[in-house]
């Protein structure tokens, strides 16, 4: 086993841990905040499904992996992941929900700046556009879903207890689904840069369980996310689930559904093909932030109720965090790469390869 590789991998694992600490709030924050699901239950379900998503669905996210794979030297990849991880961790400590995707994009641009490579502003513009569009779309989706669900409940004359059971089951199922999607989509952000040099071997138990070397790497990443959820996500869950806006369980379910819908819109190839084939405007297929989707949806519900219940102080800090996060990641990455190259004599980029 190459211990040098493991050392470099540690930054990816740290990023995984930070992602778990931060992004579990997007999946179960509203469910835990409304006391519909206990924190321990949420942590266990999220951990299991994130690991499953990472191992069995992670290989498909080649687009994100390719984008990040352009960081072409392992020490450089180490620093990109570490910068993003430090940024997310620092923001999580304040209890604010930040976007891991933004931190990674910021760190990659920091790497590009340091290497003197030009950033593809067409790609960046597309990603930046979704940062604006995603919360807005989530807010609109949440409002529409809330109207539909409320109307359905009003006219179905369902018993309050039955309604409670359905909402609880919905929260758990949607949470599990989102956890699977989070694992599948974000594992590439965390472990993508380490794929090419993974020193693992394919692993099989009696032809029942078969894991490729990449799946083993993703399993490690998934476990790091799970540890982050169990050990450190409580703080951010409270912010998302309680402090921003007091929500009813139905609103909590609406928020998770809106999040899942928005993530689906921005990641479904078949939907895009369908829209294009019918000459309709299609959504760009770019990695979007689940954090922004959730915050957008919560604010949408809050505004629907007149905006009185929204804690504007916290909301403002979160939105400010979205501007600050990529900038901090960029600066941290740039400065750290300088030290890594000049103090520790590490190769942080291969000049002959193409970049983002």
């Amino acid at each position, binding site marked *: 086993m190459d211990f040098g590789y493991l050392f470099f991998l540690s930054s990816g694992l740290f990023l995984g841990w930070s992602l778990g600490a931060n992004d579990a709030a997007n999946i179960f924050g509203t469910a835990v905040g409304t006391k519909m699901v206990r924190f321990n239950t949420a942590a266990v379900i999220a951990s299991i499904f994130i690991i499953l998503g990472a191992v069995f669905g992670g290989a498909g996210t080649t687009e994100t992996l390719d984008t990040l794979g352009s960081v072409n030297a392992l020490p450089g990849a180490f620093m990109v992941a570490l910068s993003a991880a430090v940024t997310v961790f620092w923001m999580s400590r304040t209890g604010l929900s930040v976007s891991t995707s933004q931190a990674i994009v910021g760190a990659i641009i920091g790497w590009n700046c340091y290497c003197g490579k030009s950033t593809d502003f067409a790609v960046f513009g597309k990603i930046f556009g979704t940062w604006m569009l995603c919360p807005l779309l989530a807010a609109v989706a949440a409002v529409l879903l809330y109207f539909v669900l409320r109307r359905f409940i*009003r006219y179905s*004359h369902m018993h309050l207890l039955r309604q409670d059971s359905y909402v609880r089951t919905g929260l758990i199922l949607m949470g599990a689904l989102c956890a699977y999607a989070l694992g599948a989509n974000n594992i590439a952000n965390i472990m993508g840069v380490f794929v090419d040099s993974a020193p693992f071997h394919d692993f099989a138990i009696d032809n029942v369980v078969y894991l490729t070397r990449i799946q083993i790497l993703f399993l490690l990443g998934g476990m790091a996310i799970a540890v982050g959820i169990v050990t450190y996500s409580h703080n951010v869950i409270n912010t998302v689930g309680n402090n921003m806006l007091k929500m009813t369980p139905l609103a909590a379910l609406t928020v998770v559904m809106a999040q899942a819908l928005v993530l689906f819109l921005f990641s479904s190839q078949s939907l895009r093909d369908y829209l294009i084939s019918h000459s309709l405007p299609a959504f760009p297929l770019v990695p979007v932030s689940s954090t922004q989707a959730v915050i957008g949806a919560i604010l949408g519900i809050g505004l629907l*109720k007149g905006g009185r219940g929204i804690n504007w102080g916290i909301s403002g800090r979160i939105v400010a965090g979205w501007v600050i996060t990529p900038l901090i990641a960029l600066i941290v990455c740039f400065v750290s790469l300088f030290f890594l190259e000049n103090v520790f004599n590490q190769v942080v980029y291969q000049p002959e390869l193409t970049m983002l």
Partner: protein
Amino acid sequence: MFSTKFSLFSHTKELEQKIDMLHDKIIEAAMVFKKATDVYLKEKRSQTYRKLSKEIKIIEHDADTLRRDIENRLYSQNLIPDFRGNILELVENLDKVINEFDEVAHKFYIEQPEIPEKYYERFRELVGQVCECAENLAMASRAFFYDLSAVRDYSKKVYWLEHESDKTTASLKEGVFDSDMELAQKLQLNSFLTEVADIADLAENCVDQLLIYVIKRDI
């Protein structure tokens, strides 16, 4: 997974039935109370009255058991977390209405107040208003669980009936104190009339709470 889900819904169904049964108990208590007062006016403390009074006692006892069971299940199964406190309060207040029916019926049995015949009609009217008030409370409370828009309709009826019962009580009390009965008898009747009217007051308080819960649920 499937069995867990199945069992979750079966627990819910059981609790739904228990909450429904508690509402049924209010209606039962009101109907038996109405019948019992009618019997009392005709036969005083007869065997029939005794039986009816006991029947109310059994209803009250069953309602207590239901209340405890509902409270336990709500907490042990972590159900309706955002409304659990409110529902607990509601269930307790519904139980108080049944307790009041039992107390008044028992007090009639023990104290056997002498009600002059000229007040019979207005007394029956008062009891009718109070019982209808309690029945509408049960319907409003049941609607809170199934159909929020109907709560307001039933609540309106409760308010109106409570107001009417206040007027009937006031006119009865006036008549009692204007009469040439002994002061002790006047005071005894006054106390009985107050207690009967209290049932409608309890129902009104309950409905006040219900309407706040409706606003809360609707947000």
